[in-house]
């Protein structure tokens, strides 16, 4: 009977996660026990914590290690994704500093919840089984629901939080149902054993059902069509820095999860899931492109923009090749950086009476703030995919992978919808440069926004000169995922 006691697992590979959890709890305790603690103190603490975790991740070896009975995995792929998530989360945290003070949501829990959401994303990226997948996803989602409704005296924010919560719970339910079907038909919750069983027994309809439901739950998290309904409302209703956070890090984490589930657990069923991914990619690209045309609120427009960008990223996934996955990773990095820059501009749309969100309010920006208008215009060209800006390269790598895999119709539809998308991005440029000027925004822009906008603009403009580090990094990450 003594033999039955299993040994204590190796905790060392999970050190960044453990540090983050302990740090989040320490910040929480600090906030609770210090009288009248505002968000800035915990925000700086959280940023220091992020820096520490990033340093730990960088010095971590690249070898693939599994621990906790195979439920948790670290390798080059998780390292790449976690660093990207940290970057996106830290940018969103910095961007929120001025906003939360002005809008009266200056409470110390805000940074703590962002840290806990980021921890959930780390767990999603490192998940190597269905149960750890669900645990990470739920930790992330629950924190995001609360953050969406954080501005609790604002009806739009509470509505956004409630809507996100109800639809998110539905998506989690679907994911769990799919996971139970997969477990029932393969007898395991670990990705590697699922793959082994499917390899030896061949596929059956029960597992396909399970994949469909799991993919539906995950597609909800990256807001891919047809599970995108919540995105415009939540993006519009949530406080702007929260929207900036939603548009970045959670998408990266969910995409990492989709990649791992499809390539590690179901490599033998590629023909089956490829159809689903192709459909989701086409539907997201088209809907994102056409529905954004009629929008007048810039946050709603960015919501549709993010839907179509997730569609573009899925094109690389549909290819199912290492080049395709590399394209997805490059696309995600470029998307996160561009997005941070655009949201800095949106956060700078501030008049004396408060923040404004209408696209027409941008009129005359080129005269009032020429540098900001220039960078914003460049980011818009980049989002549309105009060479030689970074956005073009993101699209180039995924479409190239699709063409190499023989998915010509998908690539053609992608290019066409990117042309349609260019219309509404260029409309913003037109409004900024050629429309009758509106009242100027509050100047100068807060320093932290200027800094992030500058970094984002610099990256977008000069990516083409020296793209090698990103491409090599993505290549190494793919090598760890697809040995």
């Amino acid at each position, binding site marked *: *009977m003594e033999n039955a006691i299993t040994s204590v697992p190796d905790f060392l590979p999970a050190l960044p996660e453990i540090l983050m959890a302990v740090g989040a709890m320490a910040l929480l305790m600090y906030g609770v026990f210090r009288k009248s603690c505002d968000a800035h103190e915990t925000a700086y603490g959280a940023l220091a914590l992020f820096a520490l975790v990033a340093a730990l991740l960088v010095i971590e070896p690249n070898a693939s290690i599994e621990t906790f009975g195979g439920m948790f995995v670290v390798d080059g792929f998780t390292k790449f994704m976690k660093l990207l998530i940290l970057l996106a989360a830290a940018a969103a945290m910095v961007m929120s500093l001025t906003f939360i003070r002005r809008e009266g949501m200056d409470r110390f829990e805000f940074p703590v919840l962002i840290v806990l959401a980021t921890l959930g994303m780390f767990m999603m990226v490192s998940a190597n089984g269905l149960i750890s997948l669900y645990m990470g996803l739920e930790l992330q989602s629950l924190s995001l629901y609360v953050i969406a409704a954080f501005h609790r005296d604002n009806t739009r924010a509470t509505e956004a939080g409630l809507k996100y919560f109800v639809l998110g719970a539905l998506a989690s339910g679907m994911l769990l149902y799919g996971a139970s079907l997969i477990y029932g038909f393969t007898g*395991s919750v670990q990705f590697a054993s699922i793959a082994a069983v499917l390899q030896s027994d061949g596929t059956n309809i029960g597992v396909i059902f399970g994949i469909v439901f799991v993919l539906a739950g995950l597609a909800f998290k990256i807001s891919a069509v047809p599970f995108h309904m919540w995105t415009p409302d939540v993006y519009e209703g949530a406080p702007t820095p929260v929207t900036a956070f939603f548009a970045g890090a959670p998408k990266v984490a969910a995409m990492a999860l989709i990649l791992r589930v499809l390539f590690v657990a179901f490599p033998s069923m590629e023909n089956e899931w490829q159809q689903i991914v192709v459909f989701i990619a086409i539907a997201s690209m088209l809907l994102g492109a056409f529905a954004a045309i009629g929008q007048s609120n810039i946050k709603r427009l960015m919501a549709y923009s993010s839907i179509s960008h997730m569609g573009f990223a899925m094109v690389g996934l549909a290819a199912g090749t290492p080049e395709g996955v590399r394209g997805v990773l490059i696309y995600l990095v470029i998307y996160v950086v561009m997005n941070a820059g655009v949201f800095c501009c949106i956060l700078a749309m501030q008049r004396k009476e408060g923040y404004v969100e209408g696209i027409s309010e941008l009129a005359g920006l080129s005269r009032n703030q020429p540098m900001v208008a220039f960078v914003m215009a460049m980011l818009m060209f980049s989002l549309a995919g105009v060479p030689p800006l970074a956005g073009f390269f993101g699209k180039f790598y995924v479409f190239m992978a699709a063409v190499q895999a023989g998915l010509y119709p998908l690539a053609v539809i992608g290019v066409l919808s990117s042309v349609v998308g260019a219309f509404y991005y260029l409309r913003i440029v037109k409004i900024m440069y050629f429309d009758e000027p509106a009242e100027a925004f509050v100047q100068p822009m807060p320093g932290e926004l200027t800094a992030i906008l500058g970094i984002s603009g610099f990256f977008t403009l000069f990516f083409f000169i020296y793209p090698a580090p990103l491409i090599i990094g993505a290549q190494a990450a793919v090598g760890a995922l697809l040995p």
Partner: protein
Amino acid sequence: MIGTAIAFYLFAAITVAAGFMVISARNPVHSVLFLILAFFNAAALFVLLGAEFLALILVIVYVGAVAVLFLFVVMMLDVDFLELREGFLQYLPVGALVGIILLIELLLVLGSWVIAPEAAGVAASPTPAITAVDNTRALGQVVYTQYVYLFQAAGLILLVAMIGAIVLTLRHKPNVKRQVIAHQVARTRETGVELKKVEPGQGL
């Protein structure tokens, strides 16, 4: 053997019947009471499976805490359930249609159910045989070792739920007098007692 079968059918039938009553009872308090009945019988089914730990947890947590909480909420909130049910019949045809389609699809999926020969090997759990060790001990052996990651993750999720509830609902009202024991203890004769000189025959 026959005794177990009879017990199973008895408990299962009562569970299903109680579940049906939960959604069809007109009085919400009756619904909660039937819910408790359903929980008890489900616990009995767990005992039949040999999972006495789960059975007791079900009774303690669900009956002891959740159902009682429901009762309080139902009594306190005074929700007009009859009003909520209005239009129930109107949605019945569509609801029934969706339910039937789902049932057919499920049957189609389950129709292809074959237990893979490898499945037994894959699912080999670290839990020892039920004859060797009772299941409370078996759970204790894996929850804090093999499954420590999931256990801690669940703890963090509950922490987030708690933070969320506090952040979204707690409001510090001004002018609320709270008991501060330190202030009470620190009270001295000088701050607590005021001497007034009362002139004879005048009162205060």
